[in-house]
Each structure stands twice: as C-alpha cells, then as structure tokens.
C-alpha cells in the first residue's frame, strides 16, 4: 500500500476549530472613570427585581447630593435583556449608568 495519508505525518500538533462565537475582541479598553459625578447625568436602571426601586431611591439621593442629574429607567422584566430602544435612550441621554440588581 503506497497510499499517502492525507492527515499529515504523526507527532505534529493538531489543528482544531474554534467553538466560540469569535466575537470577543482580544482587548477592550474601559472608559476613563469620571473623577466626580458633579454636573454629570447619571442613569439609574431598575431591572424590575423586587425592592430594586428602594435601593435606587437611596442611590439617587446620594448622587443628587453630589451634584449629579439623575434619570431613572426600568427594564420591563429582569429575566430578559433590556430592549434595544431603552439601551439606546440611555446611551444618548446619560454620561454614566448604574444598573441595580437587588432582591
């Protein structure tokens, strides 16, 4: 038999196929953290978990004391991703967003 093995000679490393969505950039640069919230518009996103509003009410008080303008947003349900329109609205109306996960 002189048939030549198409899988290549033995003792070499194997090549496999990437099982992932290949959507992850190799590096991601976070935005610069603001030194102060004074004068910034801060979005507070309530994900609709019970008592999340209580937590955010207090956060809002503290932010306003520090000179921030606060805008409140709410997801329809905590079990699903925020609707794309809501994400867009937050992105164009706020400098910073805080998402509340609470029970």
């Amino acid at each position, binding site marked *: *038999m*002189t*048939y*030549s*093995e*198409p*899988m290549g000679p033995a*003792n*070499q*490393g*194997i*090549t*496999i*196929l*990437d*099982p*992932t*969505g*290949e*959507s*992850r950039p190799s590096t991601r640069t976070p935005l610069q953290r603001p030194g102060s919230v004074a004068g910034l518009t801060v979005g507070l996103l309530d994900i609709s978990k019970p008592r999340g509003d209580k937590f955010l009410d207090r956060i809002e008080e503290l932010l306003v004391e520090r000179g921030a303008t606060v805008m409140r947003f709410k997801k329809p*349900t905590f*079990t*699903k*991703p925020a609707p794309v329109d809501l994400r867009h609205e937050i992105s164009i109306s706020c400098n910073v967003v805080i998402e509340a996960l609470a029970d």
Partner: protein
Amino acid sequence: MTAQPVLPDGLVAIVKRECETCRMVEPVLSAIAATGAPLAVWVQDDPTFCVELGAVHDTDLAVSWHHDIGTVPTLISVRDGAEVERTIGWSRDEWRGITGMATLGADLPPTRPGCGSMSVDPDLIDGLRARFTGDVLVSRRVELSATEDEFEALFARGWTDGLPVVPPTRERVLRMLTGTTREPSEVVAIAPPDLVEMTVEKIAINAVMAGCLPEHLPWVIAALEAVCNDTFNMHGVLATTMPVGPVIVCNGPGTRAIGMNSGINAFGQGNRANSSIGRAVQLTIRNVGGGRPGEVDRATHGNPGKLSFCFAEDEDASPFPPLSVARGIEPGRNAVTVFAGEGPRCVVDQLARTPEELAASYAACLRTVHHPKLVIGFDAILVVSPDHGRILADAGWTREQLVDALDARLGTPGRDLARGAHGMAEGVPAHLASVESLPKFRPGGLLVAFAGGGAGLFSSIIAGWANGAIGSDPVTRAVGT
C-alpha cells in the same frame, strides 16, 4: 484542497490490486486497450498494478473522491468531458454494452461483485472529506502544539463544561456535518447571551466536543432553535439564580433510530444520545453564546442536569399520545419539547391501585413545587412511569383526565397561601387571601410525559422556572434533516 480532476474522453477504469475482481478484469482491460479504444486506468493502491496499460496512481484519491467511486472496479464512459454511463463490479453484459465489444470477457463468469473503493474506506473518508471539502468551514483554526495535551488545551481555553471534550478537528466536524442537509453557513439562531450568530458549523463543532454522532445533529439543531427565542427565553434561563436548565423531551420514531433511552435510567447516565444531545445544546450556549457559570449564568446552586438533561418518551408503552402530538406536532414526526426545568424528584406511591388514589398522591407532591405556598407562577412536567401508567391505562384515563383530576385536587384557599399564613413569610400577596381557591398551575402549565423502567411504582416531577411572558414557556419543534 485539490481541483476536481477532469476525466478524459473514452473509457475510464478505476481499480485496486487488493480487489480480486479488479485482478480478474485486468485481462479484459488489456483486451480493450488492444483494440486501440481510448482507455485511461487509475489505480488506488499499488502503482505497479496495470502499469502496462499506462495506469496512473490515484495518489491522494482525488479522482476517486470527486467522481464518487464507491466500488472498484468502476468503468465509466466519458464523452465531451462528461460522464455518460458507468458500471460497477463485473457485469459482462454491462461491460459489453459500454465498450460496444460483443465478445468481451467470454471466459469470465457473467457477474462478479466488486470491492469497496478506498475513497469510502471508513479509516480514510474523514481525512479525504477534510482535504477535498474542508474549505466550507470558516471557523478560526486553532493550532495546538505537539507538546500540548489536546484535552488539557481545551480545558485551558475555557471551552468545556467541566468534563473532557472531543477535540473538534476538521475531519470530525465535517463528519458531523454529514448528519444534516443544512449548509454549514446557515444561521440557526442568535445565541444568547452575547447575541452572536449561531451557524450550523458552530453547532457541529460543539456537537463533536459533546460526543455526538452525526445522526444526533438534527436533534441538537432543533433543540437550539427551540431554546433560542423570546418564548423559551434561553437568556433568562441561563442568567437566573434558580436551578434550571433546558430539559429536552424527544419524541418520534427517530428516538428509537438513534438509540435514545426512554426506559431504565432514562434521566441518568449511560446512553450516548441522551447524554450528548443535551450536552451539545449547553456547550453551544456556553461557547457560541458566551453563557458561562459565574458570568451571565448566576445560578445559586444550579443542578447536575445542566450538563445534560435529555430523554425520550416511551411512546410504545405510553397510555397517552406523545407529548409532541399533544402540543401540536403531527403523529410520527420527530420533535423536541424544551422546558426550563430543575432536576427530577421522585414520587413514591406503591400502594395506589386506582387512578384517583394515584392522582391524590401526585397532587400532594406537585403542591410542593418550589414552595407549597407559591402558585401559578411555575410550570412542571410529571413523568409517569410504566408501573403507574398501567393503573391509569387500566382505568382508561386520558392525559387530559389526569391533568383535570390533578387540578381538581390542587386548588387551595387564598388564606392558606397568603404571605404570613401558617407561620411562613413566603406566599402569595395579601390581596389574594380572600380568593376562595387558587390553582397550583396556570392552564397548560402542567405537562405529562411517559418514561422510565418497567419496574418501580414511582413517577417523577420536573419543576419549572418563572413561566409566561416574564420567564419561559415550553417550546415544541419538529426535528428537521
């Protein structure tokens, strides 16, 4: 990758020395060549075979692969670069017909079967498929070093569910893709949580890793189609702190064809199809969608079924029509039903002999799903065993009668369920305390399936997750090809 070889006009024969029939027809080929008729011979194995006929060695089997040679000898008639006729093995009449030589092979038997072509040899076909069709795969190639253990390398990259996976080489992925008629590039769904396109190719890669066979792939694809939509809400099922994952109930004749287990230990270990189909679904969500425990998967405890929880209904023994048929799929069709469920819990009743007694026991246990004082918000699957099923079948109970009987036993006064009642803070909101009777399950929220071994007066309950628009609804889908 090699270009598709063109066959010359005239007669073309593909042979191998190892084949006795090929050796038998060698004088016949010589007789054809002696007439001056154009004849080209390709030899698969030994380049010295038929060398006096000017035979060419099909070194990489490209001619055999591209011209679909399944048997040697194969004799092909080619005109204007196109095949017009072929015969396989030795058939004196057919060889005479193709060559137009009326006395060909007079000293040979009338027929003799050929041998398998090397291009379909099970030991070689995966490599050939990769060589000749591998370009259809577009996933990023990841080269592992010879000094790297490939199983450890896959762990190190975060691509496993905690158990070893099969390295997804091109050869294995292409073999997996023979299990479906769908194109590798076809987008099956948008994978949560990262919302990236989930192609047939990516599913096949993860199915290889999970240990699937090609015939399992259509089931994996159907289950992924069933979970990746707003109705099932795989994103939420993944992200929740509750211990649920996709439970896959399979129906149809295909469950038997691929050897699924609907009997002894149906939920447990030991059956390749059950284990690998469910595992492939979860691996695809993990790898393509990016849904990993500790990241978007926030389960407080999870459950071992999140590795794989997939079983078939025992349709032959069931007193009820298949679950898929009850949910709108035509009888005889392969289908999957996906349910956001936790691990199974056992219902023991070894003394009931009437369906009413059995229903009373089922109801008492179903009442405790997630909390005895929480109602309507969670669905459940009741999996009836053969021993319990016999009691229902003997009384002629339908699935609907059983569900009605359970509903009738599961109503509870609101005052017993209200927050604070019976010393338990958990419960329904106070305004429901005045309701005369609240059901445990929403209409349609209790599914009934049939599976399990032939001995054991036990059934099983699989409790669900938040149901309806704020959570997940079960989804049933036909399995494609």
